[in-house]
């Protein structure tokens, strides 16, 4: 447990575990609504927010949160207005975000720092990041608990949720805001390029073996936290990029889950 002797590593583990909880929690609802591309789009927009922060000299996570919330609200509006072409609006916002990010990065003198936001950096998780991630992560968890069955209904059948008295429009906006904040907060740990995977992969593994909606959430959390801790510890000992190590750990978990499931079915068939 040598890694726990280092302050930066303790901070990274705290930030990592908080992100490791909110990413799959939001991810379960996002993936079941077949909106996982939104996570991908918002991560590119968040990069533009980071670049804007670096360019203007603000703390980049602040600007990333604001820019991705604005983009998320725009996506929600486009998703309603162009129901049949939802992917098109995502592709446009993704491209615009990336274009803006590229220009701002090249215009900014601090372009060296962008590397840590692209791939994540454990040594750079500061106290300021913790003060930011901790309260916002708790708020996200509280919002999801409060509207649990509302989000559940939206995921199961968005068109008919109003029949049960679910405030569809309000909850959709609330949901988009928490997705964008989650994406922006995860930047420090896994980097903008890999956030979407942290939202998707643990949930994909959880869905393979879940027997209910609640169990999908618990299993996704288990797989996500395993991947985050394994990834961070391995990246400490072998000096690897933390984002990539976390995601690859997640992929290995997913493959193991698929393998165990396959063996289980084969054994059951033979019995």
């Amino acid at each position: 447990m040598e890694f726990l002797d280092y302050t930066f590593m303790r901070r990274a583990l705290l930030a990592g575990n908080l992100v490791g909880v909110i990413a799959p929690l939001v991810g379960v609802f996002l993936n079941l609504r077949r909106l996982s591309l939104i996570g991908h789009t918002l991560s590119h927009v968040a990069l533009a927010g980071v670049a804007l922060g670096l360019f203007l000299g603000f703390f980049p996570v602040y600007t990333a949160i604001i820019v991705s919330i604005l983009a998320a609200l725009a996506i929600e509006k486009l998703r309603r207005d162009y129901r049949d072409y939802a992917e098109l609006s995502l592709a446009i916002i993704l491209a615009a975000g990336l274009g803006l990010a590229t220009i701002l990065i090249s215009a900014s003198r601090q372009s060296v720092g962008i590397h840590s936001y692209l791939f994540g950096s454990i040594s750079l998780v500061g106290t300021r990041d913790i003060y930011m991630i901790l309260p916002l992560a708790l708020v996200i968890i509280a919002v999801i608990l409060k509207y649990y069955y509302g989000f559940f209904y939206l995921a199961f059948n968005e068109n008919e949720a109003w029949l049960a008295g679910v405030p569809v429009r309000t909850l959709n906006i609330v949901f988009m805001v928490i997705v964008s904040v989650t994406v922006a907060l995860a930047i420090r740990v896994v980097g903008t390029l890999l956030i979407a995977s942290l939202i998707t992969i643990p949930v994909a593994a959880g869905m393979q073996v879940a027997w209910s909606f609640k169990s999908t959430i618990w299993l996704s959390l288990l797989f996500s936290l395993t991947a985050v801790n394994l990834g961070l510890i391995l990246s400490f000992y072998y000096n690897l990029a933390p984002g990539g190590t976390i995601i690859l750990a997640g992929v290995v978990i997913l493959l193991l889950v698929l393998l165990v499931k396959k063996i289980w079915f084969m054994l059951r068939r033979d019995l």
Partner: protein
Amino acid sequence: MSFLKVEGVSFAYRKERVVDDVNLELKLGDFAAFIGPNGSGKSTLLKLILGYLTPTRGEITLKGQPVADIMDWTRVGYISQQVKDFNQSFPATVREIVGSNLYSKMGLVKFLNQELEKKIYRALELVEMEDFINRKIGNLSGGQQQRIFIARLMVNDPELILLDEPLAGVDIRAQDDFYRIIGKINQEMNKTVIMVSHDIQVISKHANKIICFEGGRAYPHCSQEFSYDDYMHELRRTNLRIIPRHDH
């Protein structure tokens, strides 16, 4: 006082009249069947009664109250034609699916408590599916899923039940089960039911009112004017169009 009253209701969609001056009255405990060819206005009238669409003319009242003023949607239970179009691999149990409809009855934090769990169990008992409470929805047959959706609707104890072609793609045995359960809800619980159907032969055995639709107009009590054979003959003769004998 009539339970449900539809007075001179018209509805136009892009200037085309889909529902045309419909008048209709149902008593508490009625089982009404809406029959007629595709595009004759049956489903649209159902959506107007539900309050999902607003009539361009006329008024619909439920127990004397205009449906537009009803804020508590759970008073009217509705099963749409699209109810079966959900992701079959969605990882949710029967308990979670039925429970989600209790959203408006949940407290500040939207979770199920013991009292709501009891409601879920009773609704499942009603459709004889209580043993399936922990099963995944996608692992059930089409007929079983249909019964779960009835339970999901009944969990809120609605006053009026609207069913839009619930039997499309369901096999004969499951259809019998479905009618038996709807019959129980209609007769023993005295709930008013409106069901859209294509199968006049079967539904006329269960419903006490048959309302025929043609070109947006409704012809109440057409079964009293038409015998079943007459009706089928007219359907065949007019290439699946209904020609009522009298305009009411």
